[in-house]
Protein backbone atom coordinates (compact mmCIF):
# COMPACT_ATOMS: atom_id res chain seq x y z
CA UNK A 1 0.00 0.00 0.00
CA UNK A 2 2.77 2.46 0.94
CA UNK A 3 5.61 2.35 -1.52
CA UNK A 4 8.78 4.34 -0.83
CA UNK A 5 11.11 4.11 -3.79
CA UNK A 6 14.71 5.21 -3.60
CA UNK A 7 14.10 8.57 -1.99
CA UNK A 8 16.74 11.21 -1.32
CA UNK A 9 16.31 14.41 0.62
CA UNK A 10 18.42 17.20 2.06
CA UNK A 11 18.15 19.93 4.66
CA UNK A 12 19.55 22.80 2.65
CA UNK A 13 23.02 21.75 1.55
CA UNK A 14 23.16 18.76 3.93
CA UNK A 15 22.22 15.55 2.14
CA UNK A 16 20.52 13.32 4.73
CA UNK A 17 18.71 10.60 2.78
CA UNK A 18 20.55 8.91 -0.05
CA UNK A 19 18.31 6.16 -1.31
CA UNK A 20 15.70 4.75 1.05
CA UNK A 21 13.26 2.16 -0.22
CA UNK A 22 10.68 -0.01 1.48
CA UNK A 23 7.06 -0.98 1.16
CA UNK A 24 4.29 -1.56 3.58
CA UNK A 25 1.08 -3.54 3.14
CA UNK A 26 -2.33 -2.78 4.59
CA UNK A 27 -2.60 -3.90 8.20
CA UNK A 28 1.13 -4.45 8.46
CA UNK A 29 3.45 -3.01 11.11
CA UNK A 30 6.89 -2.27 9.80
CA UNK A 31 9.67 -0.80 11.86
CA UNK A 32 12.51 1.37 10.67
CA UNK A 33 15.52 0.61 12.79
CA UNK A 34 18.76 2.54 12.80
CA UNK A 35 21.16 4.48 14.93
CA UNK A 36 20.54 8.03 16.08
CA UNK A 37 20.84 10.36 13.13
CA UNK A 38 20.37 7.60 10.56
CA UNK A 39 17.49 9.51 8.98
CA UNK A 40 14.38 7.72 10.30
CA UNK A 41 12.53 10.87 11.31
CA UNK A 42 13.51 12.44 8.02
CA UNK A 43 11.84 9.58 6.14
CA UNK A 44 8.62 10.34 7.98
CA UNK A 45 8.87 14.05 7.24
CA UNK A 46 9.28 13.18 3.57
CA UNK A 47 6.18 11.02 3.61
CA UNK A 48 4.24 13.90 5.20
CA UNK A 49 5.53 16.29 2.54
CA UNK A 50 7.30 18.44 5.12
CA UNK A 51 10.63 18.00 3.34
CA UNK A 52 10.83 17.90 -0.47
CA UNK A 53 12.38 14.89 -2.15
CA UNK A 54 15.41 15.44 -4.33
CA UNK A 55 14.88 12.04 -5.93
CA UNK A 56 12.58 9.03 -5.70
CA UNK A 57 8.85 8.52 -5.29
CA UNK A 58 6.38 7.88 -2.51
CA UNK A 59 3.01 6.37 -3.39
CA UNK A 60 0.08 5.39 -1.21
CA UNK A 61 -2.45 3.08 -2.83
CA UNK A 62 -1.41 4.38 -6.25
CA UNK A 63 -1.50 8.08 -5.25
CA UNK A 64 1.80 9.90 -5.71
CA UNK A 65 2.14 11.54 -2.30
CA UNK A 66 5.29 13.38 -3.32
CA UNK A 67 3.33 15.34 -5.94
CA UNK A 68 0.84 16.59 -3.36
CA UNK A 69 1.06 19.72 -1.25
CA UNK A 70 1.91 18.93 2.37
CA UNK A 71 -1.55 19.83 3.64
CA UNK A 72 -3.22 17.42 1.21
CA UNK A 73 -1.44 14.30 2.42
CA UNK A 74 -3.40 13.74 5.62
CA UNK A 75 -6.59 13.86 3.58
CA UNK A 76 -5.56 10.60 1.99
CA UNK A 77 -5.57 8.97 5.39
CA UNK A 78 -2.04 9.43 6.70
CA UNK A 79 -1.86 10.07 10.42
CA UNK A 80 1.39 11.36 11.89
CA UNK A 81 2.58 10.94 15.46
CA UNK A 82 5.88 12.81 15.40
CA UNK A 83 8.92 12.37 17.54
CA UNK A 84 8.60 14.57 20.62
CA UNK A 85 4.77 14.62 20.21
CA UNK A 86 4.56 18.15 18.85
CA UNK A 87 1.14 18.83 20.34
CA UNK A 88 -0.48 22.23 19.96
CA UNK A 89 0.74 23.05 23.43
CA UNK A 90 -1.49 26.01 24.29
CA UNK A 91 -4.64 24.35 22.98
CA UNK A 92 -6.78 22.07 25.08
CA UNK A 93 -7.06 18.32 24.63
CA UNK A 94 -10.41 18.80 22.94
CA UNK A 95 -9.00 21.43 20.56
CA UNK A 96 -6.03 19.25 19.64
CA UNK A 97 -8.45 16.47 18.75
CA UNK A 98 -10.60 18.89 16.79
CA UNK A 99 -7.57 19.79 14.67
CA UNK A 100 -7.09 16.07 14.12
CA UNK A 101 -10.63 15.83 12.80
CA UNK A 102 -10.30 18.76 10.39
CA UNK A 103 -8.43 17.07 7.58
CA UNK A 104 -11.06 14.46 6.81
CA UNK A 105 -13.97 16.21 8.50
CA UNK A 106 -14.41 13.23 10.77
CA UNK A 107 -17.72 13.15 12.56
CA UNK A 108 -18.31 13.18 16.32
CA UNK A 109 -18.58 9.39 16.39
CA UNK A 110 -14.89 9.22 15.48
CA UNK A 111 -14.09 11.37 18.49
CA UNK A 112 -16.15 9.08 20.73
CA UNK A 113 -14.35 6.07 19.34
CA UNK A 114 -10.92 7.61 19.93
CA UNK A 115 -11.82 8.73 23.45
CA UNK A 116 -12.98 5.18 24.09
CA UNK A 117 -9.44 4.02 23.31
CA UNK A 118 -7.93 6.68 25.62
CA UNK A 119 -10.35 7.17 28.52
CA UNK A 120 -7.78 9.24 30.40
CA UNK A 121 -8.06 11.91 27.74
CA UNK A 122 -11.84 11.96 28.01
CA UNK A 123 -11.44 13.10 31.61
CA UNK A 124 -9.12 15.93 30.61
CA UNK A 125 -10.78 17.47 27.56
CA UNK A 126 -10.48 21.06 28.80
CA UNK A 127 -6.93 20.77 30.05
CA UNK A 128 -4.20 22.47 28.05
CA UNK A 129 -2.00 19.96 26.24
CA UNK A 130 1.20 21.34 27.77
CA UNK A 131 -0.07 20.54 31.27
CA UNK A 132 -0.54 16.82 30.55
CA UNK A 133 1.92 14.25 31.83
CA UNK A 134 4.37 12.77 29.34
CA UNK A 135 2.33 9.61 28.94
CA UNK A 136 -0.90 11.53 28.49
CA UNK A 137 0.78 13.74 25.91
CA UNK A 138 1.82 10.68 23.95
CA UNK A 139 -1.74 9.36 24.12
CA UNK A 140 -3.02 12.70 22.88
CA UNK A 141 -0.55 12.70 20.00
CA UNK A 142 -1.80 9.25 18.99
CA UNK A 143 -5.43 10.18 19.54
CA UNK A 144 -5.01 13.29 17.40
CA UNK A 145 -3.68 11.18 14.54
CA UNK A 146 -6.39 8.53 14.96
CA UNK A 147 -9.02 11.27 14.73
CA UNK A 148 -8.47 11.45 11.00
CA UNK A 149 -9.27 7.74 10.62
CA UNK A 150 -5.92 6.91 9.05
CA UNK A 151 -5.20 3.96 6.83
CA UNK A 152 -1.52 4.60 7.40
CA UNK A 153 -0.16 5.64 10.78
CA UNK A 154 3.36 6.99 11.17
CA UNK A 155 4.64 6.50 14.72
CA UNK A 156 7.98 8.09 15.50
CA UNK A 157 9.41 6.82 18.81
CA UNK A 158 6.08 6.61 20.64
CA UNK A 159 7.63 5.16 23.79
CA UNK A 160 10.41 7.70 24.21
CA UNK A 161 10.65 8.72 27.87
CA UNK A 162 7.72 6.61 29.07
CA UNK A 163 7.51 4.17 31.94
CA UNK A 164 6.89 0.44 31.30
CA UNK A 165 3.15 0.43 32.06
CA UNK A 166 2.60 3.26 29.59
CA UNK A 167 4.72 1.52 26.96
CA UNK A 168 2.56 -1.55 27.41
CA UNK A 169 -0.60 0.53 26.96
CA UNK A 170 0.74 2.03 23.77
CA UNK A 171 1.78 -1.36 22.47
CA UNK A 172 -1.78 -2.54 22.87
CA UNK A 173 -3.16 0.47 21.06
CA UNK A 174 -0.78 -0.16 18.18
CA UNK A 175 -1.86 -3.78 17.93
CA UNK A 176 -5.54 -2.77 18.04
CA UNK A 177 -5.00 -0.22 15.33
CA UNK A 178 -3.30 -2.83 13.21
CA UNK A 179 -6.12 -5.28 13.82
CA UNK A 180 -8.49 -2.64 12.44
CA UNK A 181 -6.58 -2.83 9.15
CA UNK A 182 -4.36 0.24 9.51
CA UNK A 183 -0.80 0.02 8.24
CA UNK A 184 1.73 1.24 10.79
CA UNK A 185 5.18 2.58 10.05
CA UNK A 186 7.02 2.55 13.34
CA UNK A 187 10.32 4.02 14.42
CA UNK A 188 11.35 2.60 17.74
CA UNK A 189 14.58 2.25 19.68
CA UNK A 190 13.45 -0.51 22.05
CA UNK A 191 14.27 -3.72 20.30
CA UNK A 192 12.09 -5.81 22.62
CA UNK A 193 9.07 -3.65 21.83
CA UNK A 194 9.79 -3.90 18.12
CA UNK A 195 10.15 -7.65 18.24
CA UNK A 196 6.81 -7.94 19.97
CA UNK A 197 4.72 -5.84 17.59
CA UNK A 198 6.36 -5.47 14.18
CA UNK A 199 5.88 -7.90 11.35
CA UNK A 200 8.88 -6.62 9.43
CA UNK A 201 11.94 -4.48 9.97
CA UNK A 202 13.91 -2.31 7.57
CA UNK A 203 17.33 -1.20 8.70
CA UNK A 204 18.42 2.33 7.92
CA UNK A 205 22.03 3.31 8.04
CA UNK A 206 23.51 6.63 7.14
CA UNK A 207 20.51 7.77 5.15
CA UNK A 208 20.21 4.54 3.17
CA UNK A 209 17.92 1.58 3.63
CA UNK A 210 19.85 -1.69 4.04
CA UNK A 211 18.15 -5.00 4.49
CA UNK A 212 14.51 -5.69 5.19
CA UNK A 213 13.78 -8.71 7.34
CA UNK A 214 10.73 -10.58 8.56
CA UNK A 215 10.43 -10.44 12.29
CA UNK A 216 10.76 -14.23 12.65
CA UNK A 217 14.02 -14.15 10.78
CA UNK A 218 15.26 -11.40 13.08
CA UNK A 219 14.19 -13.26 16.18
CA UNK A 220 16.04 -16.33 14.98
CA UNK A 221 19.19 -14.48 14.00
CA UNK A 222 19.90 -11.25 15.87
CA UNK A 223 23.20 -10.55 14.18
CA UNK A 224 21.62 -7.80 12.08
CA UNK A 225 20.87 -5.89 15.29
CA UNK A 226 24.52 -6.01 16.21
CA UNK A 227 25.53 -4.98 12.72
CA UNK A 228 23.23 -1.98 12.38
CA UNK A 229 22.58 -0.92 15.95
CA UNK A 230 25.50 -2.24 17.94
CA UNK A 231 23.16 -4.07 20.30
CA UNK A 232 22.00 -7.62 20.48
Amino acid at each position, binding site marked *: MLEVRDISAAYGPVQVLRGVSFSLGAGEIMCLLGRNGAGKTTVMKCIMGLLPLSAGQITLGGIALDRLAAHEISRHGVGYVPQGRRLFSELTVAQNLEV*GRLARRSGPEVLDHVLGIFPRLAERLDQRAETLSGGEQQMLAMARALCLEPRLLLLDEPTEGLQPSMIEAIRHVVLDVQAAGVAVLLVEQRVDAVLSVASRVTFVENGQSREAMDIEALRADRSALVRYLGVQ
Partner: protein
Amino acid sequence: MEFGPYLMLASLEGAVTTAVLSLTAVGLSLVFGVMRVVNVAHGEFFMLGAVLAWWIASAIGGMGGNPALGFVIALVLAPLVVGSIAAVADLTILSRIDYDPERTIVATIGLLYIMQQVTLMTYGPDARPVEAPFNARIALPWVEFADGRPQIYWPWGFGTTTYKLGVIVAAAIVLLGVWFVMARTRIGLIMRATQLDRDMALAFGIPVGRVYAFVFGLGAGLAALAAVLVVPIQQAHYLMGGDPLLLSFIVVIIGGLGSLPGTVLAALLIGMSDGIISVFFSPTLAKIIATLLVALVLVFRPQGLFGTRATR
Protein backbone atom coordinates in the same frame (compact mmCIF):
# COMPACT_ATOMS: atom_id res chain seq x y z
CA MET B 1 -12.68 73.77 38.98
CA GLU B 2 -9.15 72.60 38.71
CA PHE B 3 -7.34 69.50 37.76
CA GLY B 4 -10.29 67.10 37.62
CA PRO B 5 -12.04 68.19 34.44
CA TYR B 6 -8.79 68.34 32.55
CA LEU B 7 -7.93 64.84 33.65
CA MET B 8 -11.33 63.68 32.47
CA LEU B 9 -10.88 65.38 29.12
CA ALA B 10 -7.40 63.89 28.79
CA SER B 11 -8.71 60.45 29.65
CA LEU B 12 -11.36 60.69 26.96
CA GLU B 13 -8.78 61.69 24.38
CA GLY B 14 -6.63 58.84 25.64
CA ALA B 15 -9.51 56.40 25.30
CA VAL B 16 -10.00 57.40 21.67
CA THR B 17 -6.29 56.94 21.01
CA THR B 18 -6.45 53.59 22.80
CA ALA B 19 -9.37 52.45 20.68
CA VAL B 20 -7.71 53.25 17.37
CA LEU B 21 -4.32 52.03 18.50
CA SER B 22 -5.53 48.73 19.85
CA LEU B 23 -7.23 47.87 16.56
CA THR B 24 -4.12 48.76 14.58
CA ALA B 25 -1.77 46.98 16.96
CA VAL B 26 -3.90 43.85 17.20
CA GLY B 27 -3.61 43.62 13.42
CA LEU B 28 0.17 43.85 13.61
CA SER B 29 0.29 41.42 16.52
CA LEU B 30 -1.86 38.86 14.73
CA VAL B 31 0.42 38.91 11.71
CA PHE B 32 3.50 38.62 13.86
CA GLY B 33 1.97 35.96 16.08
CA VAL B 34 0.66 33.61 13.43
CA MET B 35 3.15 34.21 10.62
CA ARG B 36 6.25 35.42 12.50
CA VAL B 37 6.34 38.23 9.98
CA VAL B 38 7.40 41.78 10.87
CA ASN B 39 5.16 43.85 8.63
CA VAL B 40 6.80 47.22 8.13
CA ALA B 41 4.02 48.19 5.68
CA HIS B 42 1.35 47.97 8.39
CA GLY B 43 1.07 51.75 8.73
CA GLU B 44 0.51 52.08 4.98
CA PHE B 45 -2.44 49.71 5.13
CA PHE B 46 -3.80 52.07 7.79
CA MET B 47 -3.20 55.04 5.50
CA LEU B 48 -4.82 53.24 2.54
CA GLY B 49 -7.88 52.64 4.69
CA ALA B 50 -8.19 56.35 5.44
CA VAL B 51 -7.63 57.41 1.83
CA LEU B 52 -10.11 54.86 0.52
CA ALA B 53 -12.61 56.07 3.10
CA TRP B 54 -12.25 59.58 1.73
CA TRP B 55 -12.67 58.32 -1.82
CA ILE B 56 -15.71 56.25 -1.05
CA ALA B 57 -17.33 58.95 1.09
CA SER B 58 -16.78 61.66 -1.52
CA ALA B 59 -17.99 59.40 -4.35
CA ILE B 60 -21.21 58.71 -2.48
CA GLY B 61 -21.47 62.39 -1.53
CA GLY B 62 -20.88 63.36 -5.17
CA MET B 63 -23.78 61.17 -6.21
CA GLY B 64 -25.93 63.11 -3.81
CA GLY B 65 -25.83 60.40 -1.18
CA ASN B 66 -26.07 60.97 2.52
CA PRO B 67 -22.59 61.54 4.08
CA ALA B 68 -23.46 59.13 6.88
CA LEU B 69 -24.24 56.46 4.30
CA GLY B 70 -20.91 57.16 2.60
CA PHE B 71 -19.12 56.68 5.88
CA VAL B 72 -20.87 53.42 6.66
CA ILE B 73 -20.08 52.04 3.22
CA ALA B 74 -16.45 53.10 3.67
CA LEU B 75 -16.38 51.40 7.05
CA VAL B 76 -17.26 48.10 5.41
CA LEU B 77 -15.64 48.45 2.01
CA ALA B 78 -12.26 50.03 2.81
CA PRO B 79 -11.10 47.25 5.18
CA LEU B 80 -12.24 44.62 2.67
CA VAL B 81 -10.36 46.26 -0.19
CA VAL B 82 -7.22 46.84 1.89
CA GLY B 83 -7.41 43.29 3.27
CA SER B 84 -7.63 41.90 -0.26
CA ILE B 85 -4.67 43.97 -1.40
CA ALA B 86 -2.68 42.63 1.54
CA ALA B 87 -3.72 39.03 0.88
CA VAL B 88 -2.64 39.36 -2.75
CA ALA B 89 0.67 40.89 -1.65
CA ASP B 90 1.16 37.92 0.66
CA LEU B 91 0.46 35.35 -2.05
CA THR B 92 2.50 37.06 -4.74
CA ILE B 93 5.44 38.41 -2.72
CA LEU B 94 5.86 37.13 0.83
CA SER B 95 5.08 33.51 0.08
CA ARG B 96 7.55 33.57 -2.82
CA ILE B 97 10.36 34.54 -0.46
CA ASP B 98 9.23 31.88 2.02
CA TYR B 99 8.67 34.42 4.81
CA ASP B 100 12.41 34.56 5.36
CA PRO B 101 12.68 37.16 8.16
CA GLU B 102 15.23 39.53 6.63
CA ARG B 103 13.82 39.39 3.14
CA THR B 104 10.31 39.89 4.47
CA ILE B 105 11.36 43.10 6.19
CA VAL B 106 12.92 44.37 2.98
CA ALA B 107 9.88 43.32 0.95
CA THR B 108 7.45 45.08 3.28
CA ILE B 109 9.60 48.21 3.21
CA GLY B 110 9.23 48.03 -0.55
CA LEU B 111 5.48 47.67 -0.19
CA LEU B 112 5.45 50.67 2.11
CA TYR B 113 7.03 52.91 -0.51
CA ILE B 114 4.90 51.55 -3.33
CA MET B 115 1.68 52.22 -1.45
CA GLN B 116 2.84 55.62 -0.26
CA GLN B 117 4.00 56.81 -3.67
CA VAL B 118 1.02 55.42 -5.57
CA THR B 119 -1.20 57.28 -3.12
CA LEU B 120 0.79 60.47 -3.61
CA MET B 121 0.49 60.13 -7.39
CA THR B 122 -3.24 59.48 -7.38
CA TYR B 123 -4.68 61.08 -4.26
CA GLY B 124 -2.16 63.87 -4.01
CA PRO B 125 -0.36 65.53 -1.13
CA ASP B 126 -3.38 67.13 0.56
CA ALA B 127 -4.95 66.15 3.83
CA ARG B 128 -8.68 65.70 3.39
CA PRO B 129 -11.41 65.22 5.95
CA VAL B 130 -14.26 62.77 5.95
CA GLU B 131 -17.44 63.88 7.56
CA ALA B 132 -18.44 62.00 10.67
CA PRO B 133 -21.78 60.18 10.42
CA PHE B 134 -22.90 61.80 13.67
CA ASN B 135 -21.11 64.43 15.65
CA ALA B 136 -23.16 66.06 18.37
CA ARG B 137 -21.26 67.78 21.14
CA ILE B 138 -21.95 66.54 24.59
CA ALA B 139 -21.15 68.64 27.60
CA LEU B 140 -20.06 66.59 30.53
CA PRO B 141 -21.15 67.58 34.02
CA TRP B 142 -18.53 67.99 36.68
CA VAL B 143 -19.22 67.95 40.38
CA GLU B 144 -16.87 69.53 42.86
CA PHE B 145 -16.99 70.22 46.56
CA ALA B 146 -16.47 73.86 47.38
CA ASP B 147 -17.48 75.90 50.42
CA GLY B 148 -18.58 72.69 52.09
CA ARG B 149 -21.24 71.71 49.55
CA PRO B 150 -21.23 70.01 46.15
CA GLN B 151 -21.37 72.34 43.17
CA ILE B 152 -22.28 71.13 39.76
CA TYR B 153 -20.68 72.63 36.66
CA TRP B 154 -22.93 72.06 33.71
CA PRO B 155 -23.21 72.90 30.95
CA TRP B 156 -19.69 73.91 30.81
CA GLY B 157 -17.33 74.63 27.93
CA PHE B 158 -15.65 71.30 27.93
CA GLY B 159 -16.94 68.07 26.55
CA THR B 160 -16.55 65.53 23.87
CA THR B 161 -18.47 64.50 20.78
CA THR B 162 -20.77 61.58 20.31
CA TYR B 163 -18.56 60.48 17.45
CA LYS B 164 -15.55 60.01 19.72
CA LEU B 165 -17.62 57.90 22.06
CA GLY B 166 -18.81 55.99 19.00
CA VAL B 167 -15.21 55.24 18.02
CA ILE B 168 -14.53 53.79 21.45
CA VAL B 169 -17.63 51.61 21.33
CA ALA B 170 -16.94 50.45 17.77
CA ALA B 171 -13.37 49.50 18.59
CA ALA B 172 -14.50 47.58 21.66
CA ILE B 173 -17.04 45.66 19.59
CA VAL B 174 -14.49 44.78 16.92
CA LEU B 175 -11.95 43.68 19.51
CA LEU B 176 -14.53 41.45 21.14
CA GLY B 177 -15.27 40.07 17.69
CA VAL B 178 -11.59 39.29 17.10
CA TRP B 179 -11.41 37.60 20.49
CA PHE B 180 -14.50 35.57 19.71
CA VAL B 181 -13.15 34.44 16.35
CA MET B 182 -9.80 33.44 17.80
CA ALA B 183 -11.18 31.68 20.87
CA ARG B 184 -14.43 30.19 19.74
CA THR B 185 -14.51 29.48 16.02
CA ARG B 186 -12.99 26.92 13.70
CA ILE B 187 -11.06 29.49 11.69
CA GLY B 188 -9.65 30.78 14.98
CA LEU B 189 -8.59 27.26 15.94
CA ILE B 190 -6.92 26.90 12.56
CA MET B 191 -5.04 30.18 13.00
CA ARG B 192 -3.89 29.24 16.49
CA ALA B 193 -2.78 25.78 15.44
CA THR B 194 -0.83 27.34 12.58
CA GLN B 195 0.74 29.81 15.00
CA LEU B 196 1.75 27.09 17.47
CA ASP B 197 3.29 24.62 15.03
CA ARG B 198 3.29 25.29 11.32
CA ASP B 199 4.54 21.85 10.28
CA MET B 200 2.04 20.00 12.43
CA ALA B 201 -0.71 22.21 11.06
CA LEU B 202 0.34 21.13 7.56
CA ALA B 203 0.50 17.50 8.66
CA PHE B 204 -3.09 17.77 9.84
CA GLY B 205 -4.41 19.18 6.62
CA ILE B 206 -4.39 22.90 7.35
CA PRO B 207 -3.57 24.85 4.16
CA VAL B 208 -1.02 27.06 5.87
CA GLY B 209 -0.40 29.17 2.75
CA ARG B 210 -4.04 30.18 2.60
CA VAL B 211 -4.16 30.77 6.35
CA TYR B 212 -1.20 33.12 6.03
CA ALA B 213 -2.85 35.08 3.22
CA PHE B 214 -6.01 35.34 5.31
CA VAL B 215 -4.16 36.48 8.43
CA PHE B 216 -2.11 39.03 6.51
CA GLY B 217 -5.32 40.37 4.99
CA LEU B 218 -7.07 40.37 8.37
CA GLY B 219 -4.22 42.28 10.00
CA ALA B 220 -4.22 44.89 7.25
CA GLY B 221 -8.01 45.06 7.33
CA LEU B 222 -7.98 45.83 11.06
CA ALA B 223 -5.52 48.67 10.47
CA ALA B 224 -7.72 49.99 7.68
CA LEU B 225 -10.78 49.78 9.89
CA ALA B 226 -9.02 51.76 12.61
CA ALA B 227 -8.12 54.37 10.00
CA VAL B 228 -11.67 54.71 8.74
CA LEU B 229 -12.78 55.28 12.32
CA VAL B 230 -10.14 57.93 12.88
CA VAL B 231 -10.42 59.81 9.62
CA PRO B 232 -13.34 62.04 10.68
CA ILE B 233 -11.13 63.21 13.55
CA GLN B 234 -7.78 63.28 11.83
CA GLN B 235 -8.06 63.69 8.01
CA ALA B 236 -6.59 61.38 5.38
CA HIS B 237 -3.04 62.05 4.19
CA TYR B 238 -0.53 59.95 2.29
CA LEU B 239 2.07 60.23 5.09
CA MET B 240 -0.29 59.43 7.94
CA GLY B 241 0.95 55.82 8.29
CA GLY B 242 4.14 56.61 10.17
CA ASP B 243 2.73 57.25 13.64
CA PRO B 244 0.41 54.23 13.72
CA LEU B 245 3.30 52.00 12.62
CA LEU B 246 5.61 53.30 15.33
CA LEU B 247 2.96 53.22 18.04
CA SER B 248 1.78 49.75 17.00
CA PHE B 249 5.31 48.44 17.24
CA ILE B 250 5.67 50.04 20.66
CA VAL B 251 2.43 48.49 21.81
CA VAL B 252 3.19 45.06 20.37
CA ILE B 253 6.62 44.99 22.00
CA ILE B 254 5.34 46.17 25.37
CA GLY B 255 2.39 43.81 25.23
CA GLY B 256 4.48 40.78 24.37
CA LEU B 257 4.98 39.79 20.75
CA GLY B 258 2.01 37.92 19.40
CA SER B 259 -0.11 38.10 22.57
CA LEU B 260 -3.50 39.62 21.80
CA PRO B 261 -4.64 40.40 25.37
CA GLY B 262 -1.20 41.85 26.09
CA THR B 263 -1.48 43.98 22.97
CA VAL B 264 -4.80 45.45 24.07
CA LEU B 265 -3.52 46.13 27.60
CA ALA B 266 -0.42 47.80 26.22
CA ALA B 267 -2.56 49.88 23.86
CA LEU B 268 -4.52 50.99 26.91
CA LEU B 269 -1.32 51.92 28.73
CA ILE B 270 0.18 53.79 25.77
CA GLY B 271 -3.09 55.33 24.58
CA MET B 272 -4.12 56.65 27.99
CA SER B 273 -0.70 57.98 28.88
CA ASP B 274 -0.45 59.51 25.42
CA GLY B 275 -3.77 61.30 25.96
CA ILE B 276 -2.93 62.46 29.45
CA ILE B 277 0.66 63.51 28.83
CA SER B 278 -0.36 65.27 25.60
CA VAL B 279 -2.99 67.33 27.39
CA PHE B 280 -0.88 68.25 30.41
CA PHE B 281 2.54 68.49 28.80
CA SER B 282 3.09 67.86 25.11
CA PRO B 283 2.48 65.17 22.49
CA THR B 284 6.22 65.00 21.87
CA LEU B 285 6.89 64.18 25.49
CA ALA B 286 4.26 61.43 25.27
CA LYS B 287 6.09 59.84 22.33
CA ILE B 288 9.46 60.19 24.06
CA ILE B 289 8.15 58.44 27.16
CA ALA B 290 6.54 55.66 25.13
CA THR B 291 9.76 55.06 23.22
CA LEU B 292 11.74 55.08 26.44
CA LEU B 293 9.33 52.54 27.89
CA VAL B 294 9.98 50.25 24.92
CA ALA B 295 13.69 50.49 25.46
CA LEU B 296 13.26 49.60 29.12
CA VAL B 297 10.96 46.70 28.28
CA LEU B 298 13.40 45.37 25.71
CA VAL B 299 16.23 45.47 28.22
CA PHE B 300 14.49 44.23 31.35
CA ARG B 301 11.52 42.22 30.15
CA PRO B 302 11.99 41.18 26.54
CA GLN B 303 8.92 38.93 26.63
CA GLY B 304 6.83 42.08 27.12
CA LEU B 305 5.11 43.45 30.22
CA PHE B 306 2.16 41.13 29.82
CA GLY B 307 3.87 38.27 28.02
CA THR B 308 4.17 35.12 30.09
CA ARG B 309 6.97 33.39 28.29
CA ALA B 310 10.16 34.20 26.48
CA THR B 311 9.65 34.80 22.78
CA ARG B 312 10.42 31.82 20.67
